[in-house]
């Protein structure tokens, strides 16, 4: 689960990590008054809050500039904030239409001497967490890593004890924080950052940049965190931070029923079980010049309700012109899929062709139910016959 920058910072602050003072302003909040809470400052940073990277380089469609701007007065900061709120910000991750900005974060601006990159994340190849740091912060670190331009230093973390002080010291030296005072500040910061990562079931914590100020402080300027969906059951504070406005409405609805649904640009609705088979079905359609309208994994649930809900979500997709059911029953049984579908259809017949491929647990029973109750459903025996059948249907129309 992604959360906003101001939420990440709120969590970081509660763990004693060094941050600038800031206030979040929603669309209905009084802008001037809220900024006034910061007192009179020399610099203000105004930052659009959306779940998307590249805000600093992003551009608002209404012409108010980028997603991160500096101001020299509270009045100027308020003007920028008003320009951002309720408008669309386009970044490299949002797509052409952009994402509406419902909240901005206004922070004290500080004089920065040097910018550092710092992150904690999972290295899957070794099954351990790693801390990564670079003396060249502030840049697009992903592309820097890809092109091998910047020097990145890594320390492997042995869970759950966390990063040892000697590792943090080694990292501090490597990125040019030699002075005793700064180095120890870094050691303290990295220790706290790991605690934050661990205790909040994070899957990524990234600080880019971490600022070294002219008066010898380390301050987190931009903080980002992503949290493990599987750990949310024990993270009440985080659960309350979920911002469904930032997610696809159908994906939110699906997730409430334990379904994994992702909207795609095509016109063939897919009802599949298991992540692997769901992906393979998408790939099969694509390889044959057909385009799936979605990824859907019925998940580990075994109930009719889940299928009913899944089918309703698929029916709500106005672009789809055909429904493909590809179910290989294991935990999810074929007859349960068929019954769940019938319940969803009840009284509202599905107007488009239905192609069904079922194998595995209770597949014969499932096929029988569909044949009797939805006469226009077309059964295919093997996966390889699916594309031809759909092409035939499209050709006839």
């Amino acid at each position, binding site marked *: 689960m992604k959360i906003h920058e101001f939420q990440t910072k709120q969590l970081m602050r509660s763990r004693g990590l060094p941050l600038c003072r800031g206030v979040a302003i929603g669309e209905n909040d009084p802008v001037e008054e809220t900024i006034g809470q910061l007192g009179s400052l020399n610099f203000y940073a105004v930052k659009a809050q959306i779940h998307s990277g590249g805000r600093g380089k992003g551009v608002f469609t209404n012409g108010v500039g980028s997603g991160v701007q500096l101001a020299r007065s509270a009045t100027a900061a308020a003007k920028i904030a008003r320009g951002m709120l309720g408008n669309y910000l386009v970044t490299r991750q949002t797509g052409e239409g952009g994402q509406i900005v419902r909240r901005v974060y206004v922070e004290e601006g500080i004089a920065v001497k040097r910018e550092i990159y710092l992150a904690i994340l999972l290295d899957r190849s070794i*099954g351990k967490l790693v801390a990564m740091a670079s003396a060249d912060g502030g840049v697009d670190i992903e592309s820097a890593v890809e092109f091998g331009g910047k020097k990145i230093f890594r320390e492997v973390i042995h869970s*759950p004890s966390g990063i040892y002080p000697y590792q943090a010291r080694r990292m501090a030296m490597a990125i040019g924080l030699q002075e005793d005072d700064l180095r120890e500040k870094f050691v303290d910061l990295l220790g706290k950052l790991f605690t934050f990562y661990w205790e909040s079931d994070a899957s990524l914590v990234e600080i880019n940049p971490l600022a070294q100020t002219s008066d010898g402080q380390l301050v987190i300027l931009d903080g980002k965190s992503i949290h*493990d969906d599987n*750990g949310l059951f024990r993270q009440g504070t985080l659960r309350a931070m979920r911002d469904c406005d930032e997610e696809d409405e159908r994906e939110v609805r699906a997730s409430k029923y334990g379904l994994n649904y992702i909207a795609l640009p095509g016109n063939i609705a897919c009802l599949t079980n*298991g992540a692997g088979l769901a992906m393979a*079905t998408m*790939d099969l359609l694509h390889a044959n010049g057909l385009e799936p309208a979605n990824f859907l994994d019925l998940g*580990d649930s075994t109930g009719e309700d889940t299928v009913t809900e899944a089918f309703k979500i698929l029916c709500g997709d106005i672009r789809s012109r055909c429904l493909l059911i590809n179910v290989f029953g294991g935990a999810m049984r074929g007859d349960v899929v068929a019954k769940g579908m019938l319940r969803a259809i009840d009284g509202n017949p599905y107007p488009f062709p239905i192609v069904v491929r079922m194998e595995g647990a209770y597949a014969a029973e499932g096929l029988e139910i569909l044949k009797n109750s939805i006469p226009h459903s077309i059964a295919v025996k093997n996966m*390889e016959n699916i594309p031809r059948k759909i092409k035939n249907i499209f050709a006839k129309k």
Partner: protein
Amino acid sequence: MAILIDCNTNVLVHGISGRAAAFHLPYCEAYGTKVVAGVRPGKGGQHYDNRIPIYDTVREAVVQHRIHASLILVPAPCAADSILEAIEGEIPLIICISEGVPTRDMLLVRERLKNSSSLLLGPNCSGIITPGQAKLGIMPNYIHLPGRVGVVSRSGTLTFETVWQLTSRGIGQSTCVGIGGDPVHGLSQLDVIKMFEKDPQTSAMIMVGEIGGEEEEEAAEFIHHYGKKPVAAYIAGVTAPEGKRMGHAGAIIAGKKSGAIHKIRTLEKHGIAVARDPSRIAEALLEICGSQCLRGNH
């Protein structure tokens, strides 16, 4: 035997009185699996189906029985704890089916596994089956056929699909292993491939992978340098959008290297026959080694 399990494997089921066990255990037993005991805290002294003794703890179960494998069918929030308890009980093979185990819990499990004598499959996996002998998992029984092809996969249903393609063509399997779809898990593609390489009953292998991580590449490198048996593969997720979690917690494209195309190219470079079409995974293996060497039981 094939690898990891056979008809003599004694099984301990964690969460034996739960919903998942109620659904899957009858099929496991019908397949010949020897379930000798169960664990369910608070139900010690009772019996599953009036036959199989239930214990409060793994420690009590291992005192009373010789256990070769643990099958974990508990809810995800308690799954890591069950794995840790099985490791402490020195159970040689632990299979965790539960889906949705937090990565943080698995990081702790990985640290504990390192200095233990246990092997772990999963979590979030479909389990393992040695056709004709034993099944510790959630796969449909009828799709399997005893034979000589080893199958290893990160996905449950896609393993069923692969196995069914083999069986439909009269080609049997030695053992089919689901390693699970989570980013931090037990045995890797490479670990299982190495076991198949050593197993005299396995003459060829199919590796089913997907986007995310670098396990398939790691296995391919080994196959290229040390592998003596033919390997076919399939990688799911060519059309997966970047940055989206495709059902499995571990199926996410993060950077160019974890995408399907990069994986496919790497595998092909190492001499593995990669099926581009998921309905022709068995065909890909047949094309490189012919049906003759793949048929027959031994």
